[in-house]
């Protein structure tokens, strides 16, 4: 608050406001001690943290601010069948044992609330504006769509938060990503974020937190905002957020863990103070004209190697920096792609619709619109993996599962699946996929597999034609 003499407080960004609200202590010569409001835990990055607690004889300080689920190594086939991968099974069993021992609530494989950790937080109303949210997963920025400061952490920090509900953190730089204008037909949230990353590169946001703003962001649904925030890490930013507004409050209202009654009114009043003040200064800026965007697709081996779908794959010989030239050349050799040609018409073997980027109900509805009355190309294997059991139930209530199955796509149980290819869902060496996930790194979807990242619309269009397709030709 401003001083009694009426001097105006320094205008702050939402990033600074959320930060300031969570500083527990600041000592000379050390990073700030930051309080964490919500800690999401999953089976892959937590086992060594629980072992650490046991070795030190520590308890979980706030199990009531912690929630666990199994998503990364869990199979997406029928949950009544045994897990064939005994190492994955042991990891899941250990996870549940850890949660029980330390009193952490969890959604196990047979829960109707199980799902990808970044899908279920928002879905259950656990993710709320102004919070600090962490998880041992780099896509934790997804929760930033609610105006939360949400970021991925390593296993040592998972242990810190379990033990103390706090982290040592240095302040990040602030980076405004302003997106103005109306998106054209066939262009969506995934195309905005792939466009941003293609411009700034995968290290462009290192050391920063993004605030996504502008009329194009305001007009997006919460699910679309989550798609954008989700891939902040692909631009190097550990977190990215959108200031809360009525769209946010409408989404959160009435969800199981959302505040109720007078608590709700009090919460909204506080949340309304979060948006960036007029005159607040960001360390960096970028402006994107949404009306100029086309559907985006990646051609290479990192998410910054993206192009408008009609554009040619860039030519390494045009680059002057030798290391950059070698890196692009290496990527094209891995992808086995010629430079100078568009990807349109390139055959694919697999289409994957899922992941914490694009597995929410609106993503499945968008894909189903394309599949309706069409058949999957016989040369393509199509996996549709809902982000959570709740998304799955909703899709089935709307009959989307029938549309997918009648088209010839595989309708699966919830999990990370072929985004990270830990659970048996994977590409074979040399295969190409169009994937709605977030990473196209070498081998990410299976050793030797080659990934084109794109939107659910582009993925569905490719599924029915069998080749990389500009969805606008099917609309």
């Amino acid at each position, binding site marked *: 608050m401003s001083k009694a003499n009426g001097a105006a407080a320094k205008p702050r960004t939402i990033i600074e406001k959320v930060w300031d609200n969570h500083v527990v202590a600041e000592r000379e010569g*050390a*990073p700030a*001690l930051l*309080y964490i*409001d*919500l800690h999401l835990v999953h089976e*892959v*990055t937590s086992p*060594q943290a629980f072992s650490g607690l046991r070795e030190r004889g520590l308890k979980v300080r706030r199990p*009531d*601010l*912690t929630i666990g689920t*199994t998503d*990364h190594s869990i199979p997406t086939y029928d949950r009544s069948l045994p897990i064939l991968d005994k190492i994955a099974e*042991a*990891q899941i*069993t250990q996870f549940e044992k850890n*949660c*029980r021992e330390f009193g952490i*609530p969890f*959604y*196990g494989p*047979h*829960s*109707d*609330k199980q799902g990808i950790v970044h899908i279920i937080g928002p879905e*259950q*109303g*656990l993710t*709320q504006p102004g919070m600090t949210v962490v998880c*041992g997963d780099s896509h934790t920025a997804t929760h930033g769509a609610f105006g939360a400061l949400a970021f991925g952490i*390593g*296993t*040592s*920090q998972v242990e*810190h938060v379990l033990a*103390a*509900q*706090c*982290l*040592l953190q*240095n302040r990040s730089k602030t980076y405004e990503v302003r997106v103005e204008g109306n998106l054209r037909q066939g262009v969506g949230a995934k195309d905005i974020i792939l466009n941003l990353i293609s411009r700034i590169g*995968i*290290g462009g946001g*290192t*050391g920063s937190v993004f605030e996504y703003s502008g009329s194009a962001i305001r007009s997006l649904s919460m699910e679309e905002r989550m798609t954008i925030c989700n891939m902040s*890490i692909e631009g*190097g930013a*550990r977190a990215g957020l959108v200031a809360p507004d009525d769209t946010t409050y409408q989404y959160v209202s009435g969800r199981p*863990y959302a*505040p109720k009654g007078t608590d709700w009114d009090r919460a909204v009043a*506080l949340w309304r103070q979060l948006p960036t003040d007029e005159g607040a200064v960001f360390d960096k800026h970028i402006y994107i004209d949404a009306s100029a965007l086309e559907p985006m697709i990646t051609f290479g081996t*990192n998410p910054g190697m993206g192009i408008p779908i009609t554009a040619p794959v860039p030519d390494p010989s045009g680059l002057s920096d030798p*290391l950059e030239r070698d*890196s692009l050349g290496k990527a094209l050799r891995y992808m086995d792609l010629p430079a100078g040609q568009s990807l349109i018409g390139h055959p694919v073997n697999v289409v994957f619709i899922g992941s914490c980027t694009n597995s929410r109900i609106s993503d499945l509805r968008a894909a189903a619109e394309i599949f309706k009355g069409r058949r999957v190309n016989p040369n393509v294997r199509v996996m549709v993996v809902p982000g959570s059991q709740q998304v799955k139930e909703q899709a089935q209530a709307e009959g989307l599962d029938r549309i997918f199955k009648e088209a010839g796509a595989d309708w699966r149980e919830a999990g990370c699946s072929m985004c*990270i*290819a*830990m659970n048996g869902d994977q590409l074979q060496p040399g295969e190409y996929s169009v994937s709605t996930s977030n*990473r196209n*790194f070498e081998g990410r979807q299976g050793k030797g597999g080659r990934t084109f990242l794109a939107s659910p619309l582009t993925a569905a269009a490719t599924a029915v034609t069998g080749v990389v397709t500009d969805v606008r030709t099917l609309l």
Partner: protein
Amino acid sequence: MEKFTKFTSRLAPLPIDNIDTDQIIPARFLKTISKAGLGDQLFYDWRYDAAGNPKPDFLLNRPEGRAAHVLLAGDNFGCGSSREHAPWALTQYGFRAVISTSFADIFRGNSLKNSFLPIAVPADAHKALFAAVAANPEAVVTVDLAQQRLTLPDGSAVTFPIDAFAKQCMLEGVDELGYILQQKPAIAAYEAKRVLTVDTRAGGLNQGQF
């Protein structure tokens, strides 16, 4: 955590930009519940052929790679996934430091918590290091964390940045958790004034267990 002491070592050059943590340790090796054995899986898909045999021409399979405790990599090292298995694998292989022009945020933080030093150097020093090791694979650098100084093979030196607190932890061989737990009174005082909160236990504890 081990104390980080000054040392001199050969370099293992990997002149590739944007080496992501999926390359450092592929996701399929993350099903482990311990830290054991990750050093053998470091850079697995670059290091072994389809049958799982070491590729004889890959640096880390050669005596020169084995003799180096400093990895020399391209720009933006460690991007992508937050897996701490990446610095675990690098240290288990025998690396104590990695030199690049920049590091991804989460990887850098994870490394410092494992006494593994990410050394960011200016572009000209970075180029000079690649040139030096190309001319002489036995060229050495000296890493002095206390002085934040990297001595190049030609005897010149560059300073590198590091968070002061992380540096102190590494030099003394203590981890951060002890320091955090010392501040329990401040944490409790903060908790006492929190107004909005969720209770994750409200919906029940062990739902849909395996």
